[in-house]
């Protein structure tokens, strides 16, 4: 309860402090192209494909794990900065 309450407190503070910023519901149009709709349609179409073609689904999961690893490494590098380079 205590840990939850602490996290809740920080959530409220962040939500309240940044509440002046506009809330994003869709991606913006770029040069007249509805990126949100196109991306949604494309990704959901891909998910429909993966429902039928299971090798594609597993490859997608593997790719997500790989890119997740790269993102994690990039985040660590940003957080640790030059310290990691000279360790």
């Amino acid at each position, binding site marked *: *309860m*205590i*840990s*939850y*309450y602490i*996290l*809740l407190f920080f*959530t*409220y503070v*962040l*939500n*309240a402090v*940044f*509440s002046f*910023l*506009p*809330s*994003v*519901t*869709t*991606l*913006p149009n770029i040069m007249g192209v*509805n990126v*949100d*709709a196109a*991306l*949604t*349609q494309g*990704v*959901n*179409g891909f*998910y*429909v*494909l993966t*429902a*039928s*073609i*299971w*090798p594609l689904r*597993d*490859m997608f*999961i*593997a790719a997500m*794990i*790989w890119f997740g*690893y790269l993102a994690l*490494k990039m985040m*660590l590098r940003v957080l640790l900065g030059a310290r*990691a*380079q000279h*360790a």
Partner: protein
Amino acid sequence: MKKRLSILLCAFISLAPGIALAYGTPVFDAEYADGNTWSPATGSPHFSSQYYALSSAAYGDMLYYAACVHQTTWVYSGSINIVAGAFYSSGGGGMGTTNNYVNSSGTPTDQVCWTGTDVNNTTFTSGLQYWLDFELNGWWGGNTYTWGPGDYLRIADGGTPPPPVVDTSTRIMNTTPADGSTIATTTSTSVGANVYINPSDYEPGAYVQIQYVADSALQAAVASPSLLYTTVNFQIATSGESDFATTSPISTTGHFTVKTTIYNVNKIDFFNLFSITIGQTALMSTSTGFTVGGLSPYDVLVQTTAKMMSDYVNNASSSLASCGFTTFDITGCAGALFIPNMASTTDLVKGFKNGFLSYAPWGYVTRFITIMSGGGSATSSLPILDATIPLPDGSPAEFYIDPNTFIPQGAAMLNSATATFGPGQGESFQTIIEPVWDDLLALLVTIAIIFNMLGTHKEGGGGRKNKLS
């Protein structure tokens, strides 16, 4: 005369607190007017403060009335007052006023009717001229009632109060959340409807369907927008008035569209032995809306803390009873105090995602991740290729390819192919190959990550820059 009437009108309005003029075309029913006809029955539709020229037959009678209004045109939540007044002048001298405040406490749920007579028992007197003002207003003012279809007023100058005409048509009387209302985000929003179904319309199996969706979700281009709606069905047990409600979590802020429909099932009877149901017919449908607003930080704090306490008290696996003086258990107490339960953690993450993570500019990243995870919309179909190409002889040739048909069917056919020999005899192609395929992919990813961490895929010192150490 006109100047005098204007003065009377102003005087009456000033005496009716919070008065709101009623406009429209109410029905003046002269049938109950004790043989007399009110002069504006076929005159101006302006309802408030009309002058009624009484025939001599009305003298010695009192005023009786009956009125019915509907909530669908009701724009005010609070007490209802009908103001009926008779103004009369006496030979150009003084004048008197009779006000009759008929109060119906609470908010009307559907059709609301009143009958009665004027409080002061004003008896129409020969030689006088009367004003009648019959108005509907919220006592605290500021609202306006607009007369709608089915609303009416009947006036009689004697005898007994005219009977109200009760609406018995099949209709959706109101929906919850109320049309135009604003509610706060909550995990237990009450969604429901109050309906009336006429006995002649009712068939066993009839039901009420409520569909609602956040308008923001409709912004995405989807193949089947109807799938975006959350649908709730309620079976109608009998004809007459029925009230349905259920709770549903609504955490998205913004405007919601609600479609409410009364469906009657279509049945074919076979010699009264049995019947089959073929589709349904919409008897009545309405489209309403409500707005979900975010709570203030203080409100959220109060609401969530209360819910948090309730969750923990009601959660046996992390009972606060372990912290009690006589039932103290350090393991259970520590767990209850420091380990959030699943429901609370889920709410926490949702609140963080719908709040902080939705703000620009990082809200675009959140939206991107949402789309990539398949949560952008409920699309469940692939685009169809449909093209018409003219042939050399001028006739059109249409190419129509629906991948939603042949891809699933082809994949199902391949996956269902079974081995006819070996250890996997009788097993399907997918059952045999998928574990091998998964292991191969897992091995490749693991090797790629290890090599990347060690930097062995780079030549010379180049790998050092990519090492995780």
